[in-house]
């Protein structure tokens, strides 16, 4: 982290090369997080770059005793959120309505559950999971991505999106429920004649 402090200081003076070295350790993961939240690579690229430019422009005001990672991701998240708002992305509802208000799920399909042995991390599954993730409502999706894609702790997530840990917990719970519902729904549909 010593090197990072030096790079930050140099970036504060506007040095582009130092800044590029500074963010090199963050950019790929930030891109991945943006990708899983926005759903497509083009948006992910735009959001990531836009966020990094903001980081560059505002780094003068960055306090050295703060966490650079948290601050960077905060900006990435805000950028994504704003873009999503602009796009007015809606959760695409599949046949069954999923009421995540109190965690109950209304599904009149049989709850066959997800069995570990059914899940293969194939290319198809990856696409499936990625698309299912896009159907998770925005607030929940963001938290799930930060937790399971990036690996931030609850308290780190709380810092980044400025939301209490209790709320984080419930969003993760609901996000996973939504994900499960979407996946199971798809499987149910595609199970006919496939297996």
């Amino acid at each position, binding site marked *: 982290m010593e090197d990072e402090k030096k790079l930050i200081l140099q970036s504060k003076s506007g040095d*582009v090369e130092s800044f590029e070295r500074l963010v090199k350790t963050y950019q790929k993961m930030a891109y991945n997080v943006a990708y899983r939240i926005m759903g497509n690579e083009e948006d992910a690229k735009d959001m*990531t770059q836009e966020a990094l430019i903001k980081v560059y422009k505002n780094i003068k005001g960055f306090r050295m005793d703060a966490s650079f990672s948290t601050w960077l991701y905060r900006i990435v998240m805000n950028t994504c959120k704003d873009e999503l*708002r602009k796009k007015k992305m809606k959760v695409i509802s599949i046949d069954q309505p999923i009421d995540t208000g109190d965690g109950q799920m209304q599904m009149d399909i049989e709850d066959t559950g*997800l069995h570990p042995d059914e899940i293969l991390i194939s290319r198809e599954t990856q696409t499936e999971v990625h698309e299912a993730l896009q159907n998770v409502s925005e607030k929940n999706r963001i938290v799930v991505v930060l937790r399971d894609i990036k690996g931030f*702790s609850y308290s780190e997530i709380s810092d980044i999106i400025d939301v209490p840990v209790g709320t984080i917990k419930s969003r993760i719970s609901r996000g996973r429920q939504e994900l499960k519902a979407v996946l199971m729904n798809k499987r149910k549909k595609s199970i006919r004649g496939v297996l």
Partner: protein
Amino acid sequence: MKCTEFEKLVNEYVDGELSHSFVEIEEHINTCTTCKQLYEETLELKTLLNELDEVELPDDFEATLHEKLVEASKEAKVIPFYKRSHNLRILTSVAAVAIISIFAFKAGTLVPMGNNNAANDSNMAVMATEEMYSADKAMDNSDSNMAMNNMAEDEESYGEPEVALTFSEAPMNKSIRMEMDHEMYAEESVNYWLETYTDTQQLQGFIDLYKLIDFNVEDNRYTFYITNEDYLIFSENLQDVFDITNEFVLEFKTGHEEVLNQFNEQVKRVDALNAQLDTDEEEDASTLEIEKRVLETLNDEVTNIENYKGLKQITITINKE
């Protein structure tokens, strides 16, 4: 442990964030098949996500980023703060609870009025026209520029555009709405102003302009520098209104104490490190180097403050939700 409690805790458990002891949960998993399934499913979902391939950056990512950075670096010129004015894009409002709109327009011959007349003039040279503010929430940069330019043409140019401060008669209804966009950052040269208006409609003619010398954006903190006279008027007229609303938290700080405190603390830290420095310890030496650099940065900030002598610093913190 009951199943309902298990359901509440299973995610935390799977994420390793459980503050309870594991024993109860693990016992429950072993004894309750439904919950065991829930546990396995939760773990499975987590695994599915964890095992998604990391996607590579696009080939041109670094190149295009570089171009944008270079462009951004050119925009930031080193100009003495008290002479600099900034450009802000007009941004769509984001915060659900907000009161003061900060609009920014490209510099034109905007409000060429002297400071002294400020307090007495109720109708500003710059009158917000309805067309400018009709797109209340989403303002397009080009539209407002056009509007500004139209207005500017009508005004006599006095040279250096100084935004004057004025306070019109305080509106009867003091409920205020504020909009602020956390994305704001400085670009080129602008003038900006604060505006208050009632909940239901924007009051024409009630335009309050402040001379803002500079601003910084850090998270949700907006720092302005204004003259003492301006500050008196600002605080008189708006302070009590801010107290009315509980919708957001507004920290109304003045002074540069914070930075000065940081600076003083850093001086102490560096001195302490110096004193206990064992030159054989490489680590000590490089830590000291780092802390010295931090001190330099703080020193710069303190120096900037010197530039703001005679001005008041105001920090507004907006907490959403």
